[in-house]
């Protein structure tokens, strides 16, 4: 688990924990073990993100989580320079499994980030029993 943010950070509001729901509790439980899960449909075979109970491609109710490799590339990003205590990088990262997710880029030189750059998942503890899947240059 990454040490880029601590439970203290979570209490100070730097790390926002999810409000876990029936639909995503399996996803968030896995993050506590450092595993990134992506929803797949057992009928049409397609992966999707964010995870839904019913497949957004075919409406099948037979969807299940599978562990992702944690590798991806930056589709796009932006460094928020104002309106925050410290700058942070938000990004869409396209996973090797073919789905793109909103995330943060951490443990990196913000000025050296680039679209297409390879990144790897790095979990940041929320202090509430789960962790946020963020990414760092591979």
């Amino acid at each position: 688990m990454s040490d880029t943010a601590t439970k203290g950070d979570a209490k100070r509001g730097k790390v926002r924990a999810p409000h876990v729901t029936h639909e995503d509790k399996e996803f968030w439980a896995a993050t506590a073990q450092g595993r990134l899960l992506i929803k797949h449909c057992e009928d049409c075979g397609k992966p999707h993100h964010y995870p839904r109970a019913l497949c957004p491609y075919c409406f099948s109710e037979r969807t299940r989580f599978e562990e992702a490799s944690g590798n991806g590339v930056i589709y796009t990003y932006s460094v928020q320079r104002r309106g925050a205590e410290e700058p942070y990088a938000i990004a869409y990262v396209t996973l090797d499994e073919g789905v793109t997710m909103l995330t943060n880029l951490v443990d990196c030189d913000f000025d050296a980030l680039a679209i297409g750059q390879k990144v790897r998942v790095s979990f940041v503890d929320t202090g509430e029993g789960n962790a946020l899947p963020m990414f760092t240059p591979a």
Partner: protein
Amino acid sequence: MSIKGKAYIAGIYEHPTRLALGKTASQLHAEVAKGALDDAGLTKDDVDAYFCDGDAPGLGPLDMIEYLGLNNVRHMDSTETGGSSYVAHVNHAAQAIAAGHCKVALITLAGRPAANAKEGVRMRYGSAYPPPAANFENPFRPTIVNMYAMCAMRHMHEYGTTSEQLAWIKVAASHHAQHNPHALLRDVVTVEEVVASPMIADPLHRLDCCVITDGGGAIVVVAPEVMRSLKRPPVKVLGAAEAPKHLMAGQPDLTFSGARWSGQRAFEEAGVKPADIKYASIYDSFTITVLETIEDLGFCAKGDGGKFVADGNLISGVGKLPFNTDGGGLCNNHPANRGGMTKVLEATRQVRGEAHPAVQVPDCDLALAHGTGGLLGARMGSVTLILGRDA
């Protein structure tokens, strides 16, 4: 059934305030309603249809119809597609009129985000249920600016668009705003000043962002027989279309907007082409919003937006596509953080020939108004409206 020629914009009003301390949001709704009905030459007793969005006080039409004292309403609509809602409301009003459900539709928008911020009033938006994407977005601290900035970053990557080209959009808006006495920002700015303004979220600078203002606006849409009884110049609804765009279950493309779809269908309904349009109101929450929308509406090829907007091509009297001659959201007004209303208002002024003389497009018999709601970098609503004159 087409709405082409079935309805007219008979009355408009833009609230002059930009900071509404001492006024409630409901009061602002009433002030703009009164203004638009006065402009049309109608009274509130003539109103038989009412439209507002999900941002209106209380339970939308139910509370507002009571507050406004509208006693003859038989059609109501609270379509909520963010800042594009009011462009959609014009479309829906025209549809309802064409179907014979009503003859005089009143659309209002009002809000006071700037005053609320000064008074420490917290606003709650939308449903009591959180958006289904919330757990997979909010922890990563999306802001309105960085969600648009990521679109600009990707557009730059794919097409070589530059910050200087984006800056030309703000420059053009500022050239227009200098003539609008109500505009929040009336100083003409240069490309150099835009790119030298503080970076908010890469690659968007402060001057790539719209203003935050209070106020609002209203539109009265009427049936042809009502229009014929009124004295104002008729502004005919020729076509309109709507399109949602979203992240496609994890397959986003942030280089285009829903305008690609809404624009094409609106042009088809109106029977005109992008090259025929003499004036365009383009939603301008950020410079990148304008750039992608101009491409998607077909004013230039995809990826050529940067070259198209440069060198004053959006400035009235200078370039090929005069846009946002009121100064737009970038300089004039972005009431309640929802700019679709003012887009329709300025397009109506242009078709009437009532824009400021310094920015009025000569013989402006065909205009477009485009609204963008939600987030260009996530899920959004695009609505395109085409307006013209009686032949």
